[in-house]
């Protein structure tokens, strides 16, 4: 055994150690990434194919038709009411939630003493972790009676007497389960998402900018409107869009409190329905392969398209923040 008997392996003849493992691992990672793309594509295609019979039967009218009649023999389906209910309840929720979320974010970034920031921030984040069915039960048990007794009964007549916009409060539905209750519950659900995004983007404003404004004698509110908001407004809109996307697809909480009636709500206190709650209410009871089931797939497809665009917009606006 002398040194000369050991031959160095010819360069290039043997693979580098780990090269095969590298290839396998890389392909596993890339494959998993591809799987996610296929998954989303498959969801869209499946929903569309499921809804195809309804689309073929009712054509484009399905989108704005307002009749939803699953009774056999006279079946007719239109998504108009559900789409309108989904959009109005979500937009109202945004209108209620944004000022409060802004207040919380402002408090957490500028006003709160440092020792209080973390507990309050965590509490707000926990609000986001509460399951939606809990919001539904709580909404039915707390929000609905409150709306019924302390808003609709107490102020309904006075509000309805306001010229021009009075009809918004005029309703013959006194059950409390209404568009208004649903918007309130949705607003509370999306509040933590919007507040957390706002807090994160407000925190990213370089302190130097704020300090120079304070140095000129600006008040905290002036620093907010003059420096922080102009610097972060695109991300703030992105955060609001994220909340809107969440609200559009919310199912269980809305199902409990909106009243589930296929009627266009002309008043805040009318009951109506949303796409997601129609699916949750009717799908488990629909017959396999029936036109009703296909119509439910079809409105599911429409919901997917709507929330895809809102979420994509949110993602695009928040992009500068996300690396």
């Amino acid at each position, binding site marked *: 055994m002398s040194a000369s008997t050991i031959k160095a392996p010819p360069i290039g003849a043997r693979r580098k150690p*780990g090269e095969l*493992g*590298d290839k396998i691992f*890389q392909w596993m*990672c*890339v494959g*998993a*990434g591809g*799987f*996610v*793309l296929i*998954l*989303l594509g498959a*969801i869209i295609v*499946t*929903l569309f194919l*499921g809804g195809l019979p309804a689309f073929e039967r009712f054509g484009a009218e399905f989108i704005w038709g307002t009749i939803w009649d699953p009774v056999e023999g006279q079946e007719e389906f239109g998504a108009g009411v559900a789409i309108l209910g989904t959009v109005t309840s979500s937009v109202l929720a945004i209108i209620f939630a944004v000022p*409060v979320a*802004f*207040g*919380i974010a402002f*408090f*957490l970034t500028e006003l709160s003493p440092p020792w209080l920031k973390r507990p309050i921030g965590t*509490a*707000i984040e*926990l*609000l986001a*972790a*509460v*399951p*939606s*069915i*809990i919001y539904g*039960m*709580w909404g039915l*048990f*707390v929000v609905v009676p409150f709306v019924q007794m302390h808003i609709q009964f107490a102020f309904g007549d006075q509000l309805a007497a306001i010229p021009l916009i009075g009809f918004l409060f005029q309703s013959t539905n006194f059950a409390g389960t209404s568009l208004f209750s649903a918007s309130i519950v949705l607003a*509370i659900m999306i509040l933590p998402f919007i*507040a957390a995004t706002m807090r994160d983007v407000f925190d990213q404003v370089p302190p130097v900018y704020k300090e120079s404004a304070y140095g000129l004698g600006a*008040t*905290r*509110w*002036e620093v907010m409107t003059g420096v922080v908001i102009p610097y972060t407004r695109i991300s703030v809109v992105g955060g609001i869009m994220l909340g809107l996307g*969440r609200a559009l*697809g*919310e*199912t*269980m909480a809305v199902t409990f409190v909106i009243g589930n009636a296929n009627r266009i709500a002309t008043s805040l206190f009318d009951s109506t329905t949303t796409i997601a709650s129609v*699916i949750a209410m009717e*799908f*488990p009871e629909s017959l*396999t392969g029936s036109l009703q089931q296909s119509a*439910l*797939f079809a409105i*599911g497809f429409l919901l*997917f398209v709507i*929330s895809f665009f809102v*979420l*994509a917009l949110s*993602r695009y606006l928040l992009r500068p923040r996300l690396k």
Partner: protein
Amino acid sequence: MSTTTATIMASRNIEQQRSLGRRRKFVDKLVMYFCLTATVVGLFFLLSIMGTLLWRGLIALDLIVLTQEFQPTRYGDDSLPKGGLIHAIVGSLIQTSIATAIGTPIGLLVGTYLSEYAGKSKFGYAVRFISDILLSAPSVLIGLFIYQLVVLPQGGFSGFAGALALAIIVIPVVVRTTEDMLQLIPNTLREAVVALGAPKWKMITLVAWRAAISGIMTGILLAFARIMGETAPLLLTSFGNNILSTDLSRAMASLPVSIYQQANSGFPDLIDIAWSGALLVTLGVLFINIIARVALRKRA
């Protein structure tokens, strides 16, 4: 003459400035109080939810609820047996565990791809984008998807279909945290490992994953907590069941679906049981969330 005018002008100016200053301070104060109120309102909602859950949930919560299966309403007749939620608790644990077991490896690999391989490639951008869309996509639609894909061909609702639907919800949560946590690892660590001659896959699995383990675990815990409370997708896939069943090929109960069904039953005794189930789910979800946050904080 001119000096007096100037003095009058100056004093008026000071007067104006003072009133402007007062107004600015007043507006500032007003906004501060508004923000304080907003925060108190936000916290009040959390307290109200927890308070309502404890108040209503403790009425029916006892050992029977935790150990017995569903029983029909007693109509106020106390001689009839009281029902429980054990079938739903077991069903929920089975489905969420399987979902986490399926979703985690996929999410972990996708997150690893985005952090270690994707770079600035178009494919990587698309994967990140789609994963973020899935993160917020309406969960009821995932239920519809699995219904069409699994329930229809199998010919019936099944616990397995429920687990698959939940797994799809797990994936994007794990992707997000895995990528974020791997990004936090300093590049010098990766370079040191590669400089020793280790192949990249060993660098990732033995060093990068290990360095990010507590963050990744947090993501998995958060995903687990999130699917514990999911109702809508399960309603369309595993549907619910009134007896204790561990058969994955048949309809399976779950806590959120049982809560939903009993809460809407209209019978006061069943609604009380639904509230105790709601209390159990919420305590579980919040407990896991707090654990995950504490674990993450220790690391940071």
